[in-house]
């Protein structure tokens, strides 16, 4: 096993272990912290995949923003955080079976399929190319503007819902 594979296994174990703790953790605040840890693992995997821009974005958005939002929500609904009942509902066993079966069905397909691999490496100007393609009318200009509309919709909707009515 090479060093890089060892690093991969480390990050994969971090991602999966922390992810598992996220869904199992009794305490909601701890679940958020495990979620953050899991997202750090995913950022590490992104770096191994040489998608450094996405790794940075992952840390900036998921850890620096979305998880903060989740923690705020946890604190605002703290009545639940303080005396958590059983974290799982009565269909948890069935859920485990479904998720496990799903993985068991999926894994051989993924492992067995002969994926073609490109010989070329990541170009040095990958981020630049991404920027160009985002505003290129033949590529992602429309989704790009729609993303803005979507953010706007989420902003207006969420403010409308969460505002304290006076």
């Amino acid at each position, binding site marked *: 096993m090479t060093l890089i594979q060892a690093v991969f296994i480390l990050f*994969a174990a971090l991602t999966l272990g922390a*992810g598992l703790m996220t*869904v199992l953790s009794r305490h909601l605040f701890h679940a958020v912290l495990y979620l953050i840890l899991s997202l750090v693992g995913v950022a590490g995997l992104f770096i191994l995949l040489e998608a450094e821009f996405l790794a940075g974005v992952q840390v900036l958005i998921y850890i620096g923003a979305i998880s903060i939002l*989740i923690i705020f929500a946890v604190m*605002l609904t703290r009545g639940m955080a303080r005396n958590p009942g059983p*974290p*799982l509902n009565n269909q948890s066993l069935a859920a485990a079976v479904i998720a496990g079966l799903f993985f068991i069905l999926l894994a051989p397909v993924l492992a067995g399929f002969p994926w073609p691999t490109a010989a070329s490496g990541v170009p040095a100007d990958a981020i630049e190319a991404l920027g160009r393609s985002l505003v290129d009318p033949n590529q992602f200009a429309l989704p790009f503007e729609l993303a803005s509309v979507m953010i706007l919709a989420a902003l207006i909707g969420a403010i409308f819902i969460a505002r304290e009515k006076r």
Partner: protein
Amino acid sequence: MIPLTWYLLVAAALFCIGVYGVLARRNAIAILMAIELMLNAVNLSLVAFWRYLHPERTVGQAFALFVLVVAAAEAAAGLALIISIYRNRETVDVENIDLLRG
């Protein structure tokens, strides 16, 4: 070199963990977190395919970015809904939020 299948297996496992969380947790915020895990699994497989199949094209990274926007919008609006429900019903347990009108 790491085989592509390793990444796909990790992504699949993460996705299944998310599925379990969505199905089994009672707290609405916890369900939202499990959804974030699933979105991350999707992103991971998108980026892995990008790296191994078409690193010279930008489509993988661009899609991962759009997934990120969806995740952020979903978290913002979803949590706002949960807070609003908590304010009215004093609970965020999805077992108790089963009426279409409060």
